């Protein structure tokens, strides 16, 4: 089952990368962009009988490795429930 995990910085946590990208965008003339935040998107296949189970496994993986829960939030989306 294909799973997408989005990992983003918690609100309030400094995102130096987002800030630098925002500056660069505005330097390139994209002054219409603001509030740039940069997170990760992890896609993976999980061998599971149903999407509930896949989601549960993904959450475990986030808690134990994929996300740094001190400063990051994560959300999970199971794409392919075939």
């Amino acid at each position, binding site marked *: 089952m294909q799973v997408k995990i989005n990992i983003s910085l918690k609100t309030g946590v400094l995102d130096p*990368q987002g800030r*630098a990208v925002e500056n*660069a965008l505005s330097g390139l003339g994209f002054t219409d962009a603001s509030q740039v935040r940069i997170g990760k998107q992890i896609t993976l296949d999980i061998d599971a009988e149903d999407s509930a189970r896949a989601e549960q496994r993904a959450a475990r993986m986030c808690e134990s490795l994929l996300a740094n829960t001190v400063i990051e939030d994560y959300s999970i989306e199971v794409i392919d429930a075939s």
Partner: protein
Amino acid sequence: MRSAILIFPGSNCDRDMMVAVERITGRRPALVWHKDSQLDPVDIVIIPGGFSFGDYLRCGALAARAPAMEAVIDHASRGGAVLGVCNGFQILLETGLLPGTLVRNGGLKFVCREVRLAVQETLETPFLDDLSSGTELRIPVAHNEGNYFADDALLDSLEEGGQIALRYIENDPTRTANPNGSARNIAGILSANGRVMGMMPHPERAMGNGHPSEDGRKFLTSVLEGVAR
């Protein structure tokens, strides 16, 4: 011999490179701030190492779009010589002056150590004039993203076109020659016209005089004399 060194916010090998060039040529390079879109005529532009714009987004990506790089692209399009070291190599790839890309080191760690390199048989280029193919050089690397990646077709064409300039060769028996997982042990490449070169190792840190090696000096001397001819 007129040279210019670009400085981006976050460049941190600019002074080291300036000192090295001045020591070899006796002449101080012009320092070009990233916001300058003007570049006085020079024999070579050097893009030094560091973490331009913090290496945020992708290393070299933000620097590649700075005004000074437009001037460099212009200089290169007129056949001017350009050398990018480490972050400078990454910037040249982002501008498209060199083909391929550099991704995270295979070990996913920053790596700082001396490597052994072999100069390759290449197309006609002023950079390697005084270094015959097979010459071995000991020069340190220090980077997070030096893992050269390109598809096989591109790698084959680089190989056939003599665009691979430097390769990692075995140095220390306790580990692999290649410090970062780079495809075909590539440490440095040339543009198709032989006038733009990018490399991961830092020659300015192997200048003798207290450094463990002086092969960087040998290499830079070849580059600077070559482009001045």
